[in-house]
């Protein structure tokens, strides 16, 4: 894959490093490698980085850093990303119960995909996913990519309340709702794990770039 990111401003206090414009594992791994590299040696005035599918946003304090100075520093970092790709990534196992009161869309997903419910469960739990990015609500992991056999569009009308811990799918992605919130994804399973514990030393179960495997519980 070509690795020629562009650095563009997003206003006067952030800049965007554009690595790619598709939902693609290799592109996303470059983004996380880049984030790790930059955060290991931040420039004074850098506030934080926000990785997404194909971009890394860098927030900075314009009273301390100019766009130009930060861009030049990051351009230099970009040349080192390839060497950083092999770093070990955290692997998290998530026990889940498919179907039932929290996985209310499991059967309609199976019908949509013309599969048996057991096949949907097997296919969804077989793969190791990457946390492409986090967003929507505090702690929500966008996991990908789903096997093509279980691609299902989001709901036409979002639900007003999805309980915390619900595992859902939409398009080529799967995710877990960290807090009770509205949601438009297809609900297929539930985990008892606490995804977001604001009072804890480490409030978030997942970090961008982590690997996630669902473990079927009876």
């Amino acid at each position, binding site marked *: 894959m070509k690795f020629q990111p562009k650095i563009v401003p*997003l206003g*006067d206090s*952030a800049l965007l490093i554009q690595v790619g414009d598709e*939902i693609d594992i290799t592109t996303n791994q470059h983004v996380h490698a880049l984030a790790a590299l930059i955060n290991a040696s931040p420039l004074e005035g850098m506030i934080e980085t926000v*990785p997404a599918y194909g971009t890394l946003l860098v927030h900075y304090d314009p*009273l301390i850093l100019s766009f130009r100075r930060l861009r030049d520093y990051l351009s230099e970092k970009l040349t080192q990303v390839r060497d950083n790709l092999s770093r070990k990534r955290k692997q998290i196992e998530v026990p889940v119960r498919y179907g039932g009161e929290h996985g209310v869309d499991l059967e309609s997903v199976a019908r949509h995909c013309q599969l048996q419910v057991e096949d949907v469960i097997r296919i969804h739990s077989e793969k190791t996913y990457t946390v492409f990015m*986090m967003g929507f*609500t*505090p702690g929500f992991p966008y996991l990908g990519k789903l096997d093509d056999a279980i691609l299902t569009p989001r709901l036409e009308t979002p639900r007003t309340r999805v309980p915390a811990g619900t595992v859902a799918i939409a398009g080529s992605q799967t995710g877990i709702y960290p807090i009770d919130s509205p949601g438009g994804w297809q609900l297929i399973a539930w985990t008892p794990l606490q995804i977001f514990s604001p009072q804890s030393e480490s409030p978030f179960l997942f970090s961008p770039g982590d690997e996630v495997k669902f473990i079927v519980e009876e």
Partner: protein
Amino acid sequence: MSLKLIDVSGLVTIQDSGRKGWRQFGVPTSGPMDAFAYRAANTLVSNPTDCAAFEIGLGDATFQATQDCVIAVTGAGYKLSIYVWEFPLWSSFFVRAGWKISLSKTDNGMWAYLAIAGGIQTQPMLGSRSTYLRGALGGLKGRQLQSDDVVNIGYLSHSSYELAARTFPERAWPAYIQTPTLDVIMGPQTNYFTNESIQIFLSNEYSVSLTSDRMGYRLEGPALTRRNETELISEGLIFGAIQVPSNGQPIVMMADCPTTGGYPKIGTVASADLPLLAQCIPNKSKIRFRETTVAKAQKRHRALISGLNKIVENE
């Protein structure tokens, strides 16, 4: 010591300079809508500029001091009375125990800030006292304040009388106006829009919709059309970013801006002009946009912030 809320009809939240370092996990920074007025209020009472203060918007609020204290009120769109007197904003005042501090809404702005010497001492959440209402984080139990709430205030290390009767001169405020022209750094998705749309955006008036909130100001005006229907995949967002959904009506992201978003961004409002935008009134203010460069925007921002040192001591 503490400050008690006697009567609240507006949206009163506790805000500090924002929740930093958690955006990669999807946690917005929150913080004040008008960051300049917020900082000025803290500066007037000699608090650190990132001290938690009250943000008052959309309606009225009355506080009562439980002990003698010094407060400062800044912002726009409010009338201030303390005990039986009316006072202008952008000043600090000595308030006796039992006196009421009333902020009543007027029609020339949106948000006021009440800072108190010693600062608000609620429990920080993820390193900040800022209230993020949608996530029920920070502030007082993650919610907006109600009548009878009592908020603890920190102790002062020096004589509070010295901090009273200080005024922040109008020449150092942001140029609050109902017809602002806001500087915009164009991009990163300018190429998603037709050339005509970019011209329309830079040459027409937009008003703020009534459906706006702390998360975003929805604008109403000539629609901006896309070159094609290419979808953008989600990427990081920032306070001031102007997203354009498929109906062509821009949405400017505000203090509770989500960390990421998937609509193309035609540009981002310059930091120095965000206070002006924040104080724009739905269905009344008329906003125009003007293209600027990052370097110019950063220079204006530095100039505005350096004005924070211009406190006039009255008596």
